C-alpha cells in the first residue's frame, strides 16, 4: 500500500516536471515529436530506476556508514554519469534497434536534473530500498507521461496560428502551465 502511494505520488501528484520543475530542459527540447518523446521517456525511466538502485546502495552502504555524506553530490553525479555511459555501451552491444531508438537521448540524460533530483530526494526522504526503486519507477513514468502529453499537444500546435512572439518556448511553457494546473487535480489521491 505504502509502495503504491509512493508510485502515484511520484508519477502524478508530485510530478517531477510539472510540480518540481525537474527535467525542464529535455521537456522543452525533446517534446516536439511524439515518437522521440516516447523514446526519451523510456530511456529516462530506465536510467532513473537504475539510479534509484545504485544511489541507494551507495548512500546507505558507503556514504552513511563511513560518515562521508558531504561527498553525496560529487559521488551521485559521477555515478549517474558513469551509469549512463555504461547503459549506452550495454544497449549498443545487446540490441541495435534499441540503441538506434534510445541512443542519441542517453548522453542528454546525464545533464537531466531529474535524475540527480531523484537520487537526492530518495536519500533525503530516507526511503527503504524497495521504496526507492518504486520512487524511481514512478518518477520515470510521470516524466514520460508529461513528455508524451506535451508532445501530443505540440504536434497539434504546429498547425495552429500562434502569434509570432509566442512561437517556440513561450507557448510551450504556457501549455506546461495549463498542464500543471490540470495535474493539480490529482492531489488528494494519496
Amino acid at each position, binding site marked *: 500500500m505504502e509502495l503504491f502511494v509512493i508510485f502515484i505520488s511520484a508519477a502524478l501528484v508530485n510530478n517531477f516536471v510539472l510540480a518540481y520543475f525537474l527535467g525542464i530542459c529535455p521537456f522543452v527540447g525533446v517534446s516536439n515529436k511524439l515518437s522521440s518523446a516516447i523514446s526519451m521517456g523510456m530511456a529516462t525511466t530506465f536510467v532513473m530506476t537504475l539510479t534509484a538502485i545504485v544511489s541507494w546502495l551507495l548512500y546507505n552502504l558507503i556514504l552513511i556508514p563511513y560518515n562521508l555524506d558531504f*561527498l553525496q553530490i560529487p559521488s551521485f553525479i559521477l555515478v549517474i554519469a558513469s551509469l549512463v555511459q555504461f547503459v549506452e555501451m550495454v544497449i549498443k552491444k545487446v540490441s541495435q534497434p534499441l540503441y538506434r531508438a534510445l541512443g542519441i537521448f542517453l548522453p542528454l540524460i546525464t545533464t537531466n536534473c531529474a535524475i540527480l533530483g531523484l537520487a537526492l530526494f530518495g536519500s533525503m526522504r530516507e526511503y527503504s530500498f524497495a521504496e526507492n526503486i518504486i520512487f524511481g519507477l514512478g518518477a520515470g513514468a510521470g516524466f514520460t507521461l508529461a513528455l508524451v502529453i506535451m508532445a501530443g499537444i505540440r504536434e497539434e500546435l504546429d498547425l495552429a496560428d500562434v502569434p509570432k512572439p509566442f512561437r517556440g518556448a513561450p507557448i510551450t511553457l504556457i501549455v506546461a502551465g495549463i498542464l500543471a494546473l490540470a495535474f493539480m487535480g490529482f*492531489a488528494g489521491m494519496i
Partner: protein
Amino acid sequence: MNKVIQMLMVLTGIGIISGGLLATVDGWADPFIIANKKAETEASIFRVQPEGKSYEALNNIGFEAYKIKNENSDNIGYALVYEGNGFQGKIRLICGLSSDLNKIIALEILEQVETPGLGTKITESPFTEQFKQLETSPSINWVKGVEPSKPNEIQAITGATISSKAVVNILNQGIEQMRQLRASGALQ
C-alpha cells in the same frame, strides 16, 4: 600511454583535492549544522510547551517525543513529533500534550507541501489556535461549516478540508501511540 597516465593523474589529483577541501569545509560546518538543528527543535518544543524549562528525549519508542519539565523539574507533559500523509504529501507536526495526554497545549506544523494559499492555511494561527486546550479523549473530531460545539472538536478550513482532516488524523494516531506507551508503562 603518456596520455592515459596524464588522464589518470589529473582525475586523481582533482578527486583528492576536492575530497580534502570538502572534508575541511564539512568539519567547519558540521558543528553549526548540528547546533542549528538542535536550536530549531528546542525552539519548537518550547513553543508548544511554553511552561517548559527543560526537556528529555524519549528513546527507543519508534517515533520522536520529548518529556517536558518545568523549573522545579516536575513533569508537566510531553512534546510529540509525528507525521502522516496530507493532501499532496507529508505533513510533519509537533504538539504539546498535558501529562495525562488528555489535552493539547499547542500545535505547530513543522513541514508540509500542501496547496499554497489553501492547504497551507493549516500552518496559520486561526487554525492552529483552535488546538490550544483541545481535549483529546476519546479522539479529536472535526466539523465543517459550523462552530465546534464540543471540547474535542475543531473547525476544518473551508477549501482545505482534506488538509485539516489530515492534521486531525495525524494527531489522533500520534496520541494513540503515546497512550499505548503509557499503558505499557514506558512513559515513566
